[in-house]
């Protein structure tokens, strides 16, 4: 629906951060989790700040379930589910119903999950639940509709390739996990897409789009008991399918650095550097979140000081993100710069990442007068994460998305007190994470510079 539609999911802070404090937040908030007989896992979070209801279903299907021959099938199916109709409604009828009920309606595909979301005025809760049941578990697949949606996706692929950062990020993922299904492009490849038959898609759909492979999160203005009854009524009738999901293996380490140099009709230079990181269930993820903030978020983070400090004004902007997948993770550095600085900026960025293992992050690590002038990147990162957690509570749809995804990605049973864990991260932890993941020789580097005249 918009340019951000099928991005890989955001930083882990928007997932885990939301889980722990459910009971400690605003007055009047209640939550309940349960599993239906058909295996659908459900979490409800009742809050009355706005007369809206937000429903997000996370289906355990992504590029991890694809092969070279079916690359892009999850994303194709995501489009089809949203726009092409069910056994009882055509695609146009679904679209008409969405508009009639004032709904926001969208979906995202990633390496692990396909996530479907709808937000409606609270009085339309029954419609939204029935709509999501219908599109997710009652799809009518035809070759004609599939071919039509492929054309739309081919346009989407062109659009991504025109965007230096989106294409650069996609290339990082495709090269960071060689030989692993996480390396398949989320959007697929044009040739593979064209060859996909309705039977292929139907088989994929029947196997993965089942209640036992789905988690449902509902956040908003409802009565929790009444909504539980309604959910049991709407989703409880979906047949039970036996399914034993086999999680993907951990990707093998990248054997060597990969550099990809692109020329485009651009005026600015764009640099993306990717390195492997801890996965969603790795205890190191907390230190990875803090490190990402310290390096590339907020006012004057370490990467800005390294690449823009003093006379080394090598970049215009620079930032860092960290994505946690179920079986892997990735750090991504993004920079915009004068194209003539590309070579120097690339070398300096790589060199700095290798030096992170020796970096001082906290004021407490300095002595005497130096302490007075030191930047406390650790304290800054902790506060950045505190504000992110606070802000996450302001968006009902964001909360629902985080909860649904967490149900699917989390493998630990112990309660997670995210901010306590963040507070416990030490400068030594940060250096260790830096040494383990960023000081490696095996990274992916993508550069985009103006085409030679």
């Amino acid at each position: 629906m918009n340019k951000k539609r099928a991005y890989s999911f955001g930083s882990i802070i928007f997932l885990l951060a939301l889980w722990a404090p459910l009971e400690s937040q605003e007055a009047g908030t209640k939550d309940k989790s349960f599993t239906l007989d058909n295996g659908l896992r459900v979490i409800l979070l009742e809050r009355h700040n706005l007369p809206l209801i937000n429903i997000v279903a996370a289906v355990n299907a992504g590029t991890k379930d694809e092969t070279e021959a079916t690359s892009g099938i999850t994303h194709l199916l995501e489009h089809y589910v949203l726009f092409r109709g069910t056994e009882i409604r055509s695609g146009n009828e679904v679209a008409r119903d969405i508009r009639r009920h004032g709904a926001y309606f969208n979906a995202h595909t990633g390496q692990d999950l396909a996530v479907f979301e709808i937000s409606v005025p609270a009085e339309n809760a029954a419609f939204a639940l029935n709509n999501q049941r219908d599109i997710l578990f009652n799809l009518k697949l035809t070759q004609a509709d599939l071919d039509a949606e492929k054309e739309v996706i081919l346009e989407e692929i062109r659009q991504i390739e025109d965007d230096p950062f989106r294409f650069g990020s996609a290339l990082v993922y495709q090269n960071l996990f060689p030989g692993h299904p996480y390396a398949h492009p989320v959007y697929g490849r044009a040739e593979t897409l064209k060859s996909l038959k309705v039977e292929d898609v139907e088989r994929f759909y029947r196997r993965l789009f089942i209640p036992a492979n789905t988690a449902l999160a509902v956040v908003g203005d409802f009565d929790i008991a009444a909504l539980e009854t309604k959910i049991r009524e709407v989703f409880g009738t979906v047949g039970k399918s036996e399914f034993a999901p086999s999680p993907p293996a951990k990707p093998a380490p990248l054997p060597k650095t990969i550099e990809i140099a692109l020329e485009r009709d651009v005026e600015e230079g764009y640099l993306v550097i990717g390195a492997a990181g801890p996965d969603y269930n790795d205890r190191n993820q907390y230190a990875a979140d803090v490190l990402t903030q310290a390096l590339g978020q907020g006012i004057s983070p370490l990467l800005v000081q390294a690449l823009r400090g003093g006379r080394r004004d090598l970049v215009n902007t620079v930032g860092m993100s960290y994505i946690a997948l179920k079986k892997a993770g990735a750090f991504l550095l993004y920079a915009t710069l004068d194209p003539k600085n590309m070579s120097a900026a690339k070398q300096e960025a790589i060199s700095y990442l290798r030096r992170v293992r020796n970096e001082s992050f906290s004021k407490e690590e300095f002595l005497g007068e130096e302490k007075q002038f030191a930047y406390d990147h650790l304290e800054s990162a902790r506060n950045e994460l505190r504000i992110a957690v606070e802000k996450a509570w302001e968006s009902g749809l964001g909360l629902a998305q985080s909860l649904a995804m967490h149900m699917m990605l989390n493998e630990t049973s112990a309660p997670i007190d995210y901010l306590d864990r963040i507070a416990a991260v030490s400068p030594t932890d940060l250096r260790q994470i830096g040494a383990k993941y960023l000081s490696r020789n095996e990274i992916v580097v993508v550069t985009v510079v103006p085409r030679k005249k």
Partner: protein
Amino acid sequence: MKRRAFGCLFLFFAAGLFVRSEGPQKLSLDNGMTVVFQQDKASAVTVLEIQIRGGQAAEGAAQAGLSFLATRLGIDIPDNTTARDFMVKALHYTLAARSDYSVIQLECLTVFFEDILDSFVKILSDPLFTGIRIDRIREYMDHQRRIQADDAGNVGHLAQLTAFFGDAGYGNSVYGTEKSLKGLKTKDIKDFYERYFVAGNMTLTAVSDLDKDRMMSILGRNFGKFQKSAAAPAIPSAAMSSSLPISGETQRIDKDVLQSFVSSAYPLPPVSRRGFALTSIVENTLGRGPGTRLWALRTEAKLAYNVAALATQMKDGGFIEAFLETDPGKEKEAGAALERILDDFREHGVTAEELEIAKIGLKAQFLRANETKAGRASTLCTFEALGLGADFFTAFAREVDEIAPDEINNHIRVVFDPARAHRVVVGPKR
């Protein structure tokens, strides 16, 4: 769930944003600076928007970029001690220069708000106009303009702005041009700052878990530093030039991209409450996702992934554009298909049922857009800057509900006049 008992969508809607607290209040400081405040305890975060009226409209001939440059200079952190303090307290601050105003948004944990504001307003109220700082900001603006130019959609949108408003005021990039930036002198920047950064020309919009008295005390102590002006400065009109050659022609811009940007735009009158509501309905009906008129270009004609309608509503005028991004080989077909939909829209307008559906969608969209503190502060600030007033925030739904089929269809016929259309295609050289 008592709200549901009203059975009236408007009451339901208007109450929605203020369940946890009262609606926004309009107040003022002793020096005349306007304050719009809403208490919201959803999070321990405070958002403050500092709005300075003027924006691009106040830029003189060949002064493109002045509003951004002056505002950016006003928040340039002067020393490492302050930078360290802001960093450790996780202050988020952004700056935007817009057609009719510039705005600085501060967002931070409420526990740090008072300390941060003490330092921040000291900088803003007494900026350093030095050559080194100005040169660094110019360089930053050059980069941002280049990034803008790397996106075909941005290039197309800017071409539409320039077509309707010429190469002054609204018609330029907020980052100016290479030439205009070089031509801006320290005196120009200082004059702009002294003229527009005065109490009577600034509005503060705060959404916070702090209560009103506490917030007003903090704001008063800090923003009291700004001079009380006898009257708000006059801002030149940025009305579109009648001499511009808008007559249905197509402007082509060569760019070697994989998708061509195809756009058709129509001018809008100066913004008013009714006009804003009418145009919002048009935008929602024409191209805001599944089921809207333009959506057929995607699902049925298979011409695009990205297809939408976008209204740019500014104080002294604006435009609405319908656009899609398509395979360059389908450029001509896409342009013709887009025009057919716009012709049909103009000729037949919308049905009563379509109008009611648009109203429901628009009001729900407004709720979602204003759910977060930052989103709400931004809307309130924009409404104030456009002259619609912060109270339009609660009146918007009523304004939308009052619109009848005849009124919206008359608006469509007037706006979508083919003789006033301007078409832009950004794509590979033929």
